């Protein structure tokens, strides 16, 4: 580690400096076709099978704007409380990269479709922080490079690169905040909460699944420090492609500590892009921006201006769904949980899943218990988002129903969930397949209880004499004998009944 890579403690950094952040989030829209051609956006196809002259940038090809892409952009803009441009153009952002077929990206420059908005985000303790939105604009994604032969998968040291243009031209919306000031020590938390809130919003609008682990939502964290009391912003670093909520928080935190160390040591921050490393939460230097890159923007002459009719914009505004924060507050009250619990559900991406499970018939506390307990643990372990686990809200609801009917106890239900996740089929199929049903045959249960009483005469006597609490030991014995498949409540009833005690 070089001197500049040493960190000062987070508390010390905040004692001296005031962080200023800028967050740039790219969202891949879930349109059926690409932004400027009719190619499919389906993921996982053979490389370069979803391409045409336009998204390959072949000589002579021309773009045509995807109307659904524009509609999605306007919806996002409206939900972010932005003004929607009455007239705006696309622009060419000129730079060279082999996975960009035209060597310019069709984007928007000084005429974004949406601008001047804000998003209120809820912090863990329920406090609301308002993040100002600079703009949201439309652009296209690039292709994907795979560098072969190098040690790190990076281009350095690679013998050759493979290019897949299936992603080239997929619609992107870039959402840029104004400088986020005044969050102080809570800056990393604000960054995380903002991205989480934005993700919920995008999903609520139905314009994208916004799955960060699949690159459908990507965040750049720009951060600078200034000494307390100073107006002028410090030099910023730009940490690129931070692709999980936790990473957004960690990256901001790391950069605060790193910047502080550099500044305390009398150094200056270099304006550069930085890479974030999931393993240890650090960032390392990427490309140094010796001079601001000159993209030579100019209005895209191959496309006509976008001029959304006001009536259409108002129609879209009227059709916006309930905003996630408002909806969450409603659900929080319905479910009777704290701000903190709700925030955890949000961060876990569990809210819609819980709602769907409740809609499928499960009680709210049960639905929440499974998604925030067993399933959240699994999603963390497997490193996949909750929604990506191979279990549906309907299946979870079915497990809840089996428990409510006394067909499963908690322990067995856990095993059923495990079975569903392992691909053994629906809950009922797992129950049948693993033979997990609670022993509810009164005769068999009666026999087991009789055996337990006979085998533990001392305990039985205690119960007979009124020490009902001792029944637990006999219940345990019965459960052991039935390999956990008995309904513990019913077993207890039977024991008390047979020993003439009052429960």
């Amino acid at each position: 580690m070089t001197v500049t890579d040493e960190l000062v403690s987070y508390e010390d950094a905040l004692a001296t400096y005031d962080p200023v952040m800028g967050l740039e989030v790219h969202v891949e829209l879930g349109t059926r076709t690409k932004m400027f051609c009719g190619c499919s956006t389906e993921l996982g196809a053979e490389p370069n099978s979803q391409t045409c002259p336009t998204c390959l940038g072949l000589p002579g090809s021309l773009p045509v704007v995807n109307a659904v892409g524009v509609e999605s952009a306007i919806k996002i803009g409206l939900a972010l409380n932005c003004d929607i441009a009455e007239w705006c153009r696309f622009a060419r952002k000129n730079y060279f990269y082999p996975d960009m077929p035209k060597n310019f990206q069709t984007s928007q420059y000084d005429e974004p479709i949406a601008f001047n908005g804000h998003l209120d985000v809820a912090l863990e303790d329920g406090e609301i922080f308002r993040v100002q939105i600079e703009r949201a604009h439309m652009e296209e994604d690039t292709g994907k490079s795979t560098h072969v032969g190098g040690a790190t998968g990076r281009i350095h040291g690679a013998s050759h690169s493979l290019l897949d243009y299936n992603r080239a031209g997929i619609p992107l919306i870039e959402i840029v905040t104004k400088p986020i000031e005044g969050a102080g020590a809570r800056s990393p938390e604000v960054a995380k909460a903002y991205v989480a809130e934005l993700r919920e919003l995008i999903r609520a609008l139905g314009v994208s699944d916004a799955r960060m682990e699949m690159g459908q939502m990507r965040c750049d964290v720009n951060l600078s420090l200034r000494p307390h009391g100073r107006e002028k912003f410090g030099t910023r670093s730009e940490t690129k492609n931070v692709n999980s909520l936790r990473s957004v928080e960690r990256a901001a935190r790391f950069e605060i500590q790193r910047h502080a160390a550099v500044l305390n040591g009398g150094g200056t921050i270099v304006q550069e892009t930085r890479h974030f490393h999931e393993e240890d939460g650090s960032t390392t230097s990427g490309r140094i921006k010796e001079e601001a890159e000159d993209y030579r923007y100019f209005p895209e002459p191959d496309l006509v201006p976008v001029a959304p009719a006001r009536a259409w914009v108002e129609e879209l505004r009227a059709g916006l769904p309930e905003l996630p924060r408002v909806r969450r507050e409603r659900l929080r009250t319905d479910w009777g949980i704290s701000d903190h619990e709700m925030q955890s559900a949000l961060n876990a991406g569990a809210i819609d899943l819980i709602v769907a499970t409740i809609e499928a018939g499960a009680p709210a506390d049960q639905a929440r218990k499974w998604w925030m307990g067993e399933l959240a643990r699994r999603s963390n372990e497997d490193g996949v988002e909750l929604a990506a686990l191979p279990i549906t809200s309907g299946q979870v609801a079915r497990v809840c129903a089996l428990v409510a009917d006394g067909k499963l106890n908690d322990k067995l239900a856990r095993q059923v969930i495990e079975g569903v996740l392992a691909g053994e089929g629906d809950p009922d199929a797992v129950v049948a397949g693993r033979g997990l049903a609670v022993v509810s045959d009164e005769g068999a249960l009666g026999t087991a209880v009789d055996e337990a009483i006979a085998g533990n005469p001392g305990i039985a006597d205690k119960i007979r004499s009124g020490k009902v609490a001792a029944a637990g030991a006999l219940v345990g014995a019965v459960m052991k004998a039935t390999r956990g498949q008995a309904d513990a409540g019913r077993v207890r009833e039977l024991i008390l009944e047979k020993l003439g005690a009052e429960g």
Partner: protein
Amino acid sequence: MTDLTRMTAAETAATIAAGEASATEVAQAHLDRIGAVDEKVHAFLHVDTEGALRAARAVDDRRARGEELGPLAGVPLALKDIFTTEGVPTTVGSKILEGWIPSYDATLTRRLKDAGVVILGKTNMDEFAMGSSTENSAYGPTGNPWDLTRIPGGSGGGSSAALASFQAPLAIGTDTGGSIRQPASVTGTVGVKPTYGGVSRYGMVAFSSSLDQGGPCARTVLDAALLHEAIAGHDPLDSTSIDAPVPPVVEAARNGDVRGMRIGVVKEFAGEGYQAGVMTRFNEAVELLRELGADVVEVSCPSFSYALAAYYLIAPSECSSNLARFDAMRYGMRVGDDGTHSAEEVTALTRAAGFGAEVKRRVMLGTYALSSGYYDAYYGSAQKVRTLITRDFERVFGGVDVLVSPTTPTTAFPIGERADDPMAMYLADLCTIPTNLAGNAAMSLPCGLAPEDGLPVGLQIIAPAMADDRLYRVGAAVEAAFTARWGHPILEEAPTL
């Protein structure tokens, strides 16, 4: 038997429809003519003998089955090598695309094929349509059939030379600053730049997207109109294509008449740099329009004097971006791919070898003009000039139906004369560029031979946007009167080669 190569397109179609000659015979006659003269002219970069004969046979088959044939079915055409043709090389006159076989047809190519037009091959052009002489082609210059030591105009010199040497009755050009009209002017042929957006640009390799416009080239006004109608109309693949009915160009070409029309002579298109013989013939044409019953007035468009400067900022700026895709990664030439060079080096080596001097000059000019800190002064100011020019046109079209001017200040100059003097070369497009900047329509047609050198002079007619039919109404009247005066079409006076 009549020489099938000397007929107009309209006559050729009628001959085939009547069964007096088969489309195959017509195609073969033109292929033979190409074989006989193109070694001298060098109008074609690629002759698609097989494709042409296949297309001709298809027309003959359709006729044999009694199917109705369109107005251009079986008529041969020379296609500028800037339009993509599925399975047939498309080079845009550049080494950088040598060997590229497009996987798709341009919309224009598709429409020609659908109309039963027989595409003979791809014609020579200034590299990426940058030039006014076809000398900038990476594949060698084209000779002007009137005098093979002179230029046939550019960038579409291959197309104009093919027409003037009777290798094809129809041709396609593209006009960014005059590349259809100036070649038509110096070869004694007819060329039309339609209203911007009138003909689809999908599959036309871009030079300057906001200026480029494909259009018809022919030996008569009616032939140009028939071709115009075949290629024009809305294309959902080109966002800038106009979604409105094509102006009635064929009807206009069949009914040439200028009686009662108000025609403006642009005052600014005269003076220093204009060849005396060009002005003589132009003034005669103006006189003719008066005799034919037009009301001719002088108009002034002061901002036109800034057109050339604005053009040489906008066109290079757009081309610097359009040509960025030629990076040796996906198609065309690749130099230095021997395992010792990085991707960036391969791109640089390929561009150094694959682009000619004029292309490099314009890419550099454009890159500079778009750079931050210079954008407003250069690209931004040029766009303002563009607005002023559009307003000048709007103002004068409030009082006149069409404008006229010489198409280009001089007759065909000798090959090599201006090759090392870009500024002199750029002046060839002085009269044609304003129309590209404003996006309206214009035509060039012959108005005689300059007395001092016996070479063709072109008359330019300019119409408002979407009034392309006016070009044909005026052009047909002028053509009929001149042909009557001369006793024959002007190309009868060209050498037979």
